[in-house]
């Protein structure tokens, strides 16, 4: 732990950056000491990413103070930042899947002799770096053979190999399951004891409280406050982030269950659908006007099931009935025609069209259902875009802005708008709240409940069990690519779901 007297490792104050008319940071501040895990919290657009990119030299601040180890610094590139001891592990792992673990850890700084790589030394150094994290991995394996968690560890090992004094972790846990998160935290604590300062950005509140020492809150690009973890209970943290009262959330949890999960007619019945190698035969019913959850650990087959229903991976066995009639869903096209919508968990590769505008991103699915010949009138496109920008509180300059300029949470809302504009009978939401902040999360959960109110069926997938419990009337539990149980009504609670996962067989 840091002694109170020791000078801070990093001190940032009054930092401001504007992109055109948008003030991304407006007097942001942050102070870090050696040997602490410091959580950086804020809503989408609060300036967390911008602040991190300033720390790592991607952006140059317009004004403000930036001191590292007591000296003013101004890194001009991530390389500069690494040279003074600031390393980053990004949300999406930025490694080369075809290279070995060792090569990935040392990429760009491999030891050479006469211009040739020294394989054995690379491997030894890589294994030492992994050993520091308490990991025993064969460093000669190719990265693509590693699990997401292992890749994350490799990314951390890589960041540490440059003698980092400050390690920035941007959403490091978003693709890890609970056991892996625990392991990661063990590694972080170990590094803390070695004196490394860590800046931890996440949207999982539990994780903030599990591992952090102090919290800094940003809102609208401004510094709101810095608190030791013990002095900032959840409710206070959330209201600091949102700048508003947060009684609504608790309200929501109750309303979801008050509408009794009676036995309604199923809208969709899937019987023994499977796809070889990705999912064993699974059967499930989705009732009309109900939120059905798919719960399970990472790799349990949640996304795989959803993709079969939507025709992404066509089913090889079994049948799907929609409203009582057997249907053939061989492609997403078929699924959309039948009134299904699927908001993928992988926003970047399966969701957004980065160069296209918010408006175009929003209307594409609807336009594609109407076919290529009848172009939607510009007026209709604008009406739809404006409607969802307002209804979902999407932060964007205009509907004509390329979607890549929006923050992750706002991109997610645009995609929700895309699928809602189809007015589907069933919408599949795969991790709709991943990587987005508490405020947007609350918006999306509210939305799910109102959709149900309108009679839409929702298939809700999340690795956050509490979230599943809050939103769903019925929960299908998966494990190891099989359905292992189903809970409904009052039985839908976190303890029971975990029990099913843990004690099956």
């Amino acid at each position: 732990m840091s002694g109170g007297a020791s000078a801070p490792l990093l001190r940032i104050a009054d930092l401001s950056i504007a992109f055109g008319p948008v003030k991304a940071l407006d007097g942001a501040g942050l102070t870090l000491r050696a040997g602490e895990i410091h959580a950086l919290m804020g809503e989408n657009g609060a300036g967390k990413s911008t602040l991190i990119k300033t720390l790592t030299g991607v952006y140059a601040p317009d004004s403000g103070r930036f001191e590292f180890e007591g000296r003013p610094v101004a890194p001009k590139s991530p390389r500069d930042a690494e040279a003074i001891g600031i390393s980053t592990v990004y949300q999406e792992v930025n490694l080369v899947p075809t290279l070995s673990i060792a090569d990935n850890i040392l990429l760009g700084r491999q030891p050479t002799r006469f211009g040739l790589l020294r394989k054995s030394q690379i491997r030894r150094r890589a294994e030492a770096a992994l050993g520091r994290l308490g990991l025993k991995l064969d460093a000669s394996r190719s990265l693509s053979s590693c699990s997401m968690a292992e890749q994350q560890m490799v990314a951390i090992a890589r960041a540490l190999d440059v003698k980092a004094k400050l390690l920035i972790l941007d959403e490091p846990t978003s693709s890890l399951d609970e056991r892996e998160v625990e392991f990661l935290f063990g590694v972080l604590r170990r590094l803390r004891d070695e004196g490394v300062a860590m800046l931890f950005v996440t949207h999982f509140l539990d994780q903030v409280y599990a591992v952090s020492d102090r919290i800094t809150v940003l809102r609208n690009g401004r510094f709101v406050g810095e608190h030791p973890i013990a002095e900032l209970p959840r409710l206070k943290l959330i209201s600091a982030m949102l700048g508003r009262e947060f009684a609504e959330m608790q309200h929501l949890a109750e309303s979801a269950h008050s509408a009794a999960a009676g036995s309604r007619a199923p809208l969709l019945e899937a019987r023994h659908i499977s796809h070889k190698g990705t999912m064993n035969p699974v059967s499930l019913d989705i009732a009309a006007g109900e939120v059905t959850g798919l719960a399970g650990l990472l790799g349990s087959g949640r996304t795989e099931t959803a993709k079969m229903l939507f025709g992404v991976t066509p089913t090889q066995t079994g049948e799907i009935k929609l409203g009582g009639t057997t249907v053939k869903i061989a492609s997403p096209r078929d699924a959309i025609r039948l009134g299904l919508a699927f908001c993928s968990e992988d926003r970047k590769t399966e969701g957004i069209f980065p160069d296209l505008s918010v408006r175009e991103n929003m209307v594409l699915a609807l336009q594609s259902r109407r076919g290529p010949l009848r172009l939607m009138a510009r007026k209709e496109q604008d009406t739809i875009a404006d409607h969802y920008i307002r209804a979902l509180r999407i932060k964007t300059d205009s509907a004509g802005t390329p979607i890549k300029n929006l923050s992750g949470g706002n991109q997610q809302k645009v995609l929700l708008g895309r699928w809602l504009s189809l007015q589907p009978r069933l919408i599949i939401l795969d991790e709709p709240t991943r990587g987005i902040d508490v405020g947007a999360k609350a918006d999306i959960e509210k939305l799910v409940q109102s959709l149900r109110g309108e009679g839409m069926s929702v298939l809700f997938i999340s690795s956050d069990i509490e979230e599943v419990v809050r939103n769903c009337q019925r929960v299908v539990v998966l494990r190891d690519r099989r359905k292992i149980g189903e809970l409904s009504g009052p039985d839908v609670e976190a303890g029971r779901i975990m029990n099913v996962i843990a004690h099956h067989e």
Partner: protein
Amino acid sequence: MSEPLARVRAWFQGGTLLWPLLGLAALLAFNLVWSPGFFSVELREGHLYGILVDILNQGSKVMLLSIGMTLVIASGGVDLSVGSIMAIAGALAAALVTRTGLPFVAVVPITLLAALLAGFGNGLLVAKAGIQPIIATLILMVAGRGVAMLITGGQILTFDLPAFVYLGNGHLFGLPFTVTIVAAVLAISVWLTRRTACGLFLEAVGDNGRAARFCGINTTAVKLLVYAVSGLCAGIAGLIATSNIKAADSSRVGEMMELDAIFAVVVGGTALTGGRFSLVGSVLGALLIQTLTTTMQNLGVPPAISPVPKSIVIVAVCLLQSAKFRGQIGGLWKGKARP
């Protein structure tokens, strides 16, 4: 703001059209000073003649190719085979004209259908077989001229059928007939991409093919279509090139023109990575390249070294299109301005 004015501004948005236009203007300004007679146009027998008219006429082939190429590049691919498809189309038309009694009105659709099918074949290799576009179209680029030779029997087929000769040498409305052809093809393709949702789907496929599939877009059909259209455009260009010299010269027609077409597309502001595209920009790019070629011929630059200045201009326009590069130059400027 008035509607037309807003549209003009939208055109210039991001400078996609601004930079090829500026390049063109700079070239013309250069000629205004250095080559007297460049701008003189005279009217003879109701037809316009002059260097500017020549540029439009000579540039028509690359302009046509660049229209098809734009669509292919927007889908995230590239079509290297257009020069060879020009040869096939020329050979087929010349063979039909000289060896059969078919009227020319029947020869044109048969030839264009063949060109379309050749492009469709490229599309099958790319969209169905999943071969990299550069390899898939390289196959026909290499094999196509052989096919053309087979059709002509290895000879250079000459013809003097007036209708065929008119195609590449005749005049309409006082201008070369080829100008009308380019204008029609451009108008139709702009209409088809912007007045229907086809353009939007194409941009979606090029920007993120997986996401496009998830939106229910038939990405395979989109790709098949753009390669077929590129083949069709190459077929028209092949007919013009063959008509120009009144002969089907399978080994020379359209040679290296695929590269000029790709240049034209890039100069016109469509990124090779796919997504957003501008057909008008590509045609302007093709005009820029032709103006450059003609300027050098006019100045007596030997053909052997003319690619050098050509590449310099192309690199300059491409750099100017990059916002990052402009920012760096702007930064230099500011840095120097300070004391």
